């Protein structure tokens, strides 16, 4: 019994199980279809957030362009749905029936060749993952092989987000422009707008997300995960040990891209449209905030972060339509100032020691002063010899060590 408990605790499966119960049992029972559909939408951001945990928290690579991959996945799915919604019968009012409405508005008279494959659902599913991964691979391979990293890489991801937004908006005949692709109705004849469909899609999203978390957790616990951590903390040492550091980073970036793209595709299915407003810089940074609020070292925390931020957004904007942006700002500033390691960090530094003390209390040694375990590791002697640049690095390292074994 104790062995199972220890194993559960070590691999973080307990917290994943709690999340699973929350998503698959508690939410569906407690909410009506409308709210459940909203949660389903938030969960699609959860895919991006766990991707960022792997890329940023573990790989040490900050990407400010995850919206690109979310958008590409979403657009691939939207193209399939749009073609299905544009049969000649329902588009007979157009000058060229049978092509998507925005093409007709832009004087296209036939379907562009590169749209043709998206008539196939199989190809679409493949493209949802393959197109973003291909793009992620080419960007990251080119950058990391040249040892471009850190803030420079983050800036390049921002540039990619900007380029893609401009491209989508500029090529409106092929992409729907600012309006995006709207009025998506059915998936292979199945009406995705009904309540039953929305509920089913919610469960599909939740199940996929839990699967993705398990996959990522497995990677974290494998040798690969350890190497990612090692590379983040001391890249040169890993390189000198004979590993090809850049390829690990490429892998982490592609993994995050694939996860974001799956989130994007599920988003399109649940919300019924896709628009360039998910691709740009602002939504991409928002996605980083989800991971930061949840805790960038914790997969489960990142999902809670995405849920909390979006719940907050919906709740504040419904309740205080004039003030809600200020309240959101207060939430972000509050979380970042009070718990720099996010919600998961809060759990690690406060809840866990408290639980441990409760466990110890029945044993009789309740009088133990807690300061040893909970006090921040502030050096009592001023570091006169260390340079100012080294101090924050050491700090990050310590935080990572504390939380690296949590899910």
């Amino acid at each position, binding site marked *: 019994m104790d062995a199972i408990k220890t194993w559960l605790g070590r691999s973080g499966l307990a917290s994943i199980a709690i999340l699973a119960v929350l998503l698959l049992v508690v939410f569906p029972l407690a909410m009506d279809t409308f709210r459940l559909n909203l949660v389903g939408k938030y969960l699609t951001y959860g895919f991006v957030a766990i991707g960022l945990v792997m890329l940023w928290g573990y790989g040490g690579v900050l990407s400010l362009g995850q919206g690109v991959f979310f958008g590409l996945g979403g657009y691939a799915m939207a193209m399939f749905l749009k073609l299905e919604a544009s049969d000649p019968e329902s588009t007979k009012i157009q000058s060229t029936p049978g092509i998507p409405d925005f093409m007709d508005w832009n004087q296209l008279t036939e379907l562009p060749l590169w749209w043709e494959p998206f008539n196939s659902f199989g190809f679409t599913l493949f493209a949802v993952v393959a197109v973003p991964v291909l793009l992620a691979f080419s960007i990251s391979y080119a950058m990391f092989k040249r040892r471009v990293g850190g803030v420079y890489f983050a800036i390049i991801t921002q540039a990619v987000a900007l380029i893609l937004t401009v491209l989508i908006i500029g090529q409106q005949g092929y992409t729907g422009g600012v309006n995006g692709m709207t009025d998506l109705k059915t998936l292979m004849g199945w009406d995705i707008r009904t309540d039953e469909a929305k509920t089913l899609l919610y469960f599909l999203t939740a199940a996929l997300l839990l699967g993705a978390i398990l996959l990522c957790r497995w990677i974290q616990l494998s040798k690969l995960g350890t190497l990612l951590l090692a590379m983040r903390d001391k890249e040169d040492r890993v390189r000198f040990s004979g590993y090809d550091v850049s390829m690990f980073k490429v892998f982490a970036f592609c993994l995050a891209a694939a996860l974001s793209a799956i989130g994007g595709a599920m988003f399109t299915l649940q919300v019924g*449209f896709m628009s360039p*407003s998910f691709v740009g810089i602002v939504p991409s940074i928002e996605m980083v905030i989800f991971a930061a609020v949840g805790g960038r070292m914790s997969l489960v925390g990142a999902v809670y972060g995405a849920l909390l931020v979006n719940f907050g957004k919906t709740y504040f904007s419904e309740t205080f*339509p004039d003030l*809600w942006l200020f309240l959101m700002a207060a939430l972000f500033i509050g979380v970042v100032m009070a718990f720099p390691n996010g919600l998961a960090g809060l759990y690690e530094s406060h809840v866990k020691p408290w639980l441990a003390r409760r466990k110890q209390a029945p044993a009789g040694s309740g009088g133990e002063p807690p300061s040893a375990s909970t006090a921040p590791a502030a050096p009592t002697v001023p570091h006169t010899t260390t340079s100012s640049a080294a101090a924050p690095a050491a700090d990050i390292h310590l935080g990572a060590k504390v939380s690296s074994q949590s899910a």
Partner: protein
Amino acid sequence: MSDKHLPSSSRRTFMLGAAALPLALAMSRMGHAAALPTAQVNTTGLAVTDTEVIVGQLHSATGTMAISETGSIQAEQLAIDQINAMGGILGRKIKVIKEDGASDWPTFAEKSRKLLVNDKVATVFGCWTSASRKAVLPIFEKENGLLYYPTFYEGLEQSKNVIYTGQEATQQILYGLDWAKKEKGAQKVFLVGSDYIWPRTSMKIARKHIENFQGGKVVGEEYYPLGNTNFNSLINKIKIAKPDCIFAAVVGGSNVAFYKQLKAAGITGAKQFLLTLSVTEDEMLGIGGENFEGFYSSMKYFQTLDNANNKAFVEAFKKAYGPKAVIGDVTQAAYLGPWLWKAAVEKAGSFDVDKVVAASPGIELPTAPEGYVKIHENHHLYSKARIAQGQADGTFKVVAESPELIVPDPFPKGYQ
């Protein structure tokens, strides 16, 4: 003291006075006006009680579009307050649930679902950009909601669930071009717009009209990304092409840069004829009267329109929102929404969406600030087109008005 028996000509003046009357008076009127039981006026489970009907308002109160949409929010609120002061609709006061679309199309979709599914609102007044309308349209059609949409837009759309109180493209463009040819002898026209669906569609219609119906010539057609602020290359092209008329549909923040740079390059209203589809009193605030002086704008409404309806409207608007408030074309169109809905509900004798929609074609509003309007079967309004010249103080001087109401035609034949 009931307003029911007043002749319709004096009804409007009464209505404006009623805003200042004590609330108690309005309350006392409600009792006998609520003749129709709720079970009869609401058979589809809308948020209607014996004393109240709940409607939604969905605009961007935050984000980049807030500056444009605030006028619409205020105008709709003003109309609703005035209707409530008159005793409401079918004896029921209008209560508004306000949601913020935050200039973000997915948020518009989320909030419209919330209003229709959760709050069961009887109607929604909202949206501004085409993108936000496109985002909510499938939801209104699926949930059978009703949307009053105020902005002039590109047309190519007609939905059972939307009443378009702004102009579709032909209502704004054709009269303007005809006037430009007749009064200004415009033969060579240069088309310029922001790069999205509304300017693209508008310019397509303009080009067909100029080339096929006017025998004129398009000497340039340029589009710039939304938010673009550098128009130097455009200005060079204009200088080379020497058009008789610049026909512009540049929107948002780009407008400010566009007119400032035109002026800096010496292209001013005194030397060059320019007609735009996208400058109202609201945009004028940002552009500055001195930069737009002498150029022309084609709209259906200007704040300076000289009629009794408009004078009363401007006075009430300024009383509610301060003497510096300006009223643009869309603000006025938004103001029509609640009044058109009231007329349709009263004609239908019901709040049910299907019945209100069925009653809507043919609804007339002689009290509209822009003058008389009427709902066409295609859910757009018959309205007049007007041309006005920008003045240095930021106001517009109306110089021409279409003699007849222009029939709305969202799918114009020969212009596709």
